[in-house]
């Protein structure tokens, strides 16, 4: 059994796959990778199923030793990684010899880097998924972010190493955007015209308190038309809710499953992975699109992800 020894964990490193949808009735949110496209690309680079579990690192990466060697790939934000002190590229498969050390640093653009390893990270699944749900301490590796001294097991795989990289065109398509596209939220008509105008014209800063549960935004305050009392209801991934104070919050992968604040908008599926690359103090804007347009953008994205030209061998 191949392993990964955690010599330094980084700021917040967790085991994530594509999450566990389907358990809303018992209050369990899907969780999963904050930037699922980067995780999927990383898995494709190492020859895994795209849903295999990898490591998600945030802002500052960790240091890992591979006593038995491994085939791996780094995707997402570039954390200036080195393998035994030699700089390695992101978006390419990488052959690691037994005993080598992978060291990741910090990043100036984007928020999350994914480490995918051939065979995937092997943990006991919770409700069918390896994803860590930090708040409840469930899933992943002991239900928590990694610590120094942890030893992770790598799943069995005997595929040989192949040099793979992500096509430049694809990387450009998945790149970061300052404008998040949204559809109207279920309570969009609770907000006044002037508040809706301010929301779409304004620039918002990602707050320091942001995490996998939600991103707190600082910018033009939004007020409701009247004093309608909201009845708690299910909340969707990427919902932009507006609490009484008027500062919007984007609900994210470890969101609460239900909530009692009105939602002005919802980030489209095709842009959710970009939310996972937002870092504190990033400035963003919102652009409204139709549900049909949102669907077309998702279809285009999935076509690109399944295209033969995506991964160069």
């Amino acid at each position: 059994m191949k392993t990964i020894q955690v010599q330094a964990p980084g700021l917040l490193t967790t085991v994530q796959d594509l999450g566990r949808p389907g358990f809303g009735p018992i209050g369990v949110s899907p969780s999963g990778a904050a930037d699922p496209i980067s995780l999927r690309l990383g898995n494709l680079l190492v020859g895994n199923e795209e849903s295999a579990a990898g490591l998600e690192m945030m802002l500052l990466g960790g240091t890992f030793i591979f006593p038995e060697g491994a085939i791996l790939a780094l995707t997402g934000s570039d954390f200036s990684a080195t393998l035994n002190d030699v700089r390695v590229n992101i978006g390419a498969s990488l052959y690691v010899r037994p005993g080598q050390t992978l060291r990741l640093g910090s990043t100036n653009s984007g928020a999350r880097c994914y480490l995918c390893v051939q065979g995937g990270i092997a943990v006991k699944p919770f409700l069918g998924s390896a994803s860590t749900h930090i708040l409840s301490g469930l899933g992943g590796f002991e239900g928590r972010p990694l610590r120094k001294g942890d030893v992770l097991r790598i799943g069995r795989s005997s595929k040989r190493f192949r040099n793979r990289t992500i096509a430049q065109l694809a990387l450009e398509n998945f790149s970061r955007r300052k404008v998040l596209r949204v559809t109207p939220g279920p309570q969009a008509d609770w907000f006044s015209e002037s508040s809706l105008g301010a929301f779409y014209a304004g620039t918002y800063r990602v707050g320091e308190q942001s995490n996998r549960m939600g991103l707190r935004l600082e910018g033009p305050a939004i007020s409701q038309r009247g004093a309608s009392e909201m009845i708690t209801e299910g909340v969707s991934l990427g919902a932009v809710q507006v609490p009484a104070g008027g500062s919007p919050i984007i609900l994210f992968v470890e969101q609460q499953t239900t909530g009692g604040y009105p939602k002005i908008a919802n980030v489209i599926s095709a842009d959710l992975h970009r939310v996972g690359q937002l870092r504190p103090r990033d400035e963003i804007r919102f652009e409204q699109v139709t549900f049909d347009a949102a669907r077309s953008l998702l279809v285009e994205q999935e076509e690109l992800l399944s295209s033969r030209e995506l991964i160069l061998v």
Partner: protein
Amino acid sequence: MQTAQTDGVRFQPASDQSLLIYFGQQITPDAHQRVRKLLRLLSQKPITGVRNLNPAYCSILVSFDALRLNHAGLEEILRGYTNRLDALRLPKGRELKIPTCYGGEFGPDLNEVASVHGLSPAQAIELHTSVTYTVYFLGFVPGFAYLGELPEALATPRLDSPRRSTPPGSVGIAGNQTGVYPFSTPGGWRLIGRTPIAMFRPDRRAMSFLAIGDRVRFTPISAAQFAALERG
């Protein structure tokens, strides 16, 4: 925006991959029954492409794979389900007890809640334990049950600023709801006691102690009984 109405059922897109079904806009036993019935029908006969269901007081959020379904198509399929709700009989909810040690360090807000309503702490405890509550739904975090209705004489608004952390098992009240925090999470409900029962355990066959539709009563226990039950 698509909205349509028949029999008080309203559909509302929530995102490009989710649709809300509302059974009216009020917390009523009838709406709750309809939520439970639709959940039951959807679990007996799942819709291909539906990925998740988030029930609440009078609504269900249906999340779907946007590559396989769209709002209009899903709404049409769901109407086939909502049309059958009246004929469906629900099994009776289970009757469960939640032993709770009230006040002191376990219920730091008990005294304030009591005094706001001109009650003694003992009277507040008596009121809280006098009612059989319904589990309207589970939400917020794994295993958190929204229980109602709290006696009007105990209804108290949330704390002005939520606690950063509430101990697992804390019994809280907010408005006319009561509930138990399964995990150490931030929370704005006023804490009046604590139960030694684990509300959510991944190694238990029924991970969540409570399920939608259960009937629940709180029973007062002493700190010594709490300790004994916690040891199991």
